[in-house]
């Protein structure tokens, strides 16, 4: 099973689409590793610097409908090769969310209220997120703040995370 812990990157906008996560001009790459320098290259947000912010982060925290648009699995791959295995958002586009779990990664939904609280309390500080897959909690920690948020994923998606993805799961069953 992959690890879902590390420094958080806060992207405070809804509807961040797959073209912003990995622009189509890089879809000519045929290895995941080649996507590494281009993650979030076209995302324009105040105070956001793709290269520097991606470099130090392992967890993305964002708003609603993350990953809308294209079916390209290059979006989760670009996260994965940058050691980001978990995105926490209010909601996800269907294909992006399934692509995450199909690769043994996590797309975790929290309520709008919980995310408001997280953005307010943690977004301005260096924050570490720790995921406990047994207790099903996310622990947000800064130098002087700490809070634990429970989360849920479907049994199917949990089975995919534990199996390391859909190919292994499907090959053993169908």
């Amino acid at each position: 099973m992959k690890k879902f812990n590390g420094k958080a990157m806060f992207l405070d906008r809804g509807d961040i689409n797959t073209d912003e996560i990995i622009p189509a001009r890089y879809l000519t790459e045929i290895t995941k590793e080649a996507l590494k320098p281009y993650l979030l290259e076209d995302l324009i947000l105040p105070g956001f610097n793709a290269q520097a912010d991606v470099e130090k982060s392992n967890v993305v925290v964002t708003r609603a409908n993350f990953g809308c648009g294209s079916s390209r699995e290059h979006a989760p791959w670009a996260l994965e090769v940058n050691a980001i295995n978990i995105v926490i958002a209010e909601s996800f586009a269907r294909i992006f969310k399934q692509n995450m779990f199909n690769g043994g990664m996590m797309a975790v939904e929290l309520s709008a209220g919980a995310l408001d609280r997280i953005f307010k309390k943690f977004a301005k500080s260096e924050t570490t997120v720790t995921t406990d897959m047994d207790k099903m909690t996310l622990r947000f920690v800064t130098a002087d703040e700490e809070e634990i948020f429970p989360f849920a994923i479907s049994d199917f998606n949990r089975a995919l995370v534990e199996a390391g993805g859909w190919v292994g799961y499907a090959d053993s069953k169908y």
Partner: protein
Amino acid sequence: MGKTIAEKIFDSHRVDNPFGDIHVINLDAVFCHEITTPVAINDLVARDMDRVFDPTKIKAVIDHVTPAKDSKTAMQGKIIRDWANRHNIKDFFDIGENGVCHALFPEKGFVRPGYTVIMGDSHTCTHGAFGAFAAGVGTTDLEVGILKGVCAFQYPESIKISVNGALPQGVFAKDVILAIIGKLGVNGATNKVIEFTGNVIDAMSMESRMTLCNMAVEAGGTSGICAPDMVTVDYLWQFISNDFSSREEAFEKYLEFTADPDATYAQVIEIDAATLVPVTTFGYKPDQVRPVSEMSSAKVDQVYIGSCTNGRIEDLRIAARILDGKHIKKGVRGVVSPASPAIYSRALEEGIIKIFMDAGFCVTNPTCGACLGMSNGVLAAGEVCASTTNRNFSGRMGKGGMVHLMSPASAAATALTGTITNSTLYKAGEK
């Protein structure tokens, strides 16, 4: 209890129900193109699982960048070409016979009512126009589809959108779907199927229904879907005439894949067609929709007519009606890409290509190219394009570019004036 079209299709294709509302269904068709498939092929090879579940149910095409523009895109083509050859995939479309997948595969008769279809492409929802469940998936789902012929989905709820009344002249399927996306929002249909019904849909050609279903994903929808009827049967007749004694018999059979009157929907939206006007997008999201008449100050550098949304013969005919005998505004670059060789050929026969060329358009081969900023009309930073495509995301047609989505009629009219303009086919207030 009655069922929706999607529920009927799921219930006839279920192979497993491993958890709660997760249903594993078998697939009637797995479509492949050269952008998302090569990584799946390479992964299958690396896992020592380089097999296909049924070569007759796999259809493949090189369409996103064709002819190859550089060594990388040439390699993507080579990987899918070699794979199709070694697995005896007969329906593989390479240069000379290739076109935009969602235009090419329907005209080959590969989609039938009641089918389940996946492809590593979000606009796969287009094929729901035939009364099929057709969903875009990622490369891993595609890989499992290729290997096992199955895919897992949440049992789909549907949103019913009923469009009734008289559609004003000069208002097209593209305007209808943009208006719907404006209403639903970019995630209004997430995890749901959008079922399009009503007399306006009944009167639409298969081409127009494909335009509608094509953009279901822009509202987050898993698949668009239209009930099969005689229009569907007539379109498919050349492919199904051996299976049925008459068109009526085919129609009777396909009634199996229409919704029950007492089916349950997550949401029902009624749209009065008479209230619709030609529209365009104004921001970086396809739900940011405004009447064309309110955007007339927007200047454009390029006009693009093509794509899986609006690159079919009906679209080219409409644009040609507006361009006939006229020339596009000096300084505007016009690019038209007929979406398949059959469409291109038909447009040649009908004199449409000549009209485009005389009007100052560049006519390119069928390809996805510029729609996603890969080739054949990429924008420079700061440039604006009026486009018949499906996405106006930031950077979509080129980093720093702005895209305004609209119908072929509005795009052609805009090419003539250089600013976003209603076509002469639309006369406000007239029915």
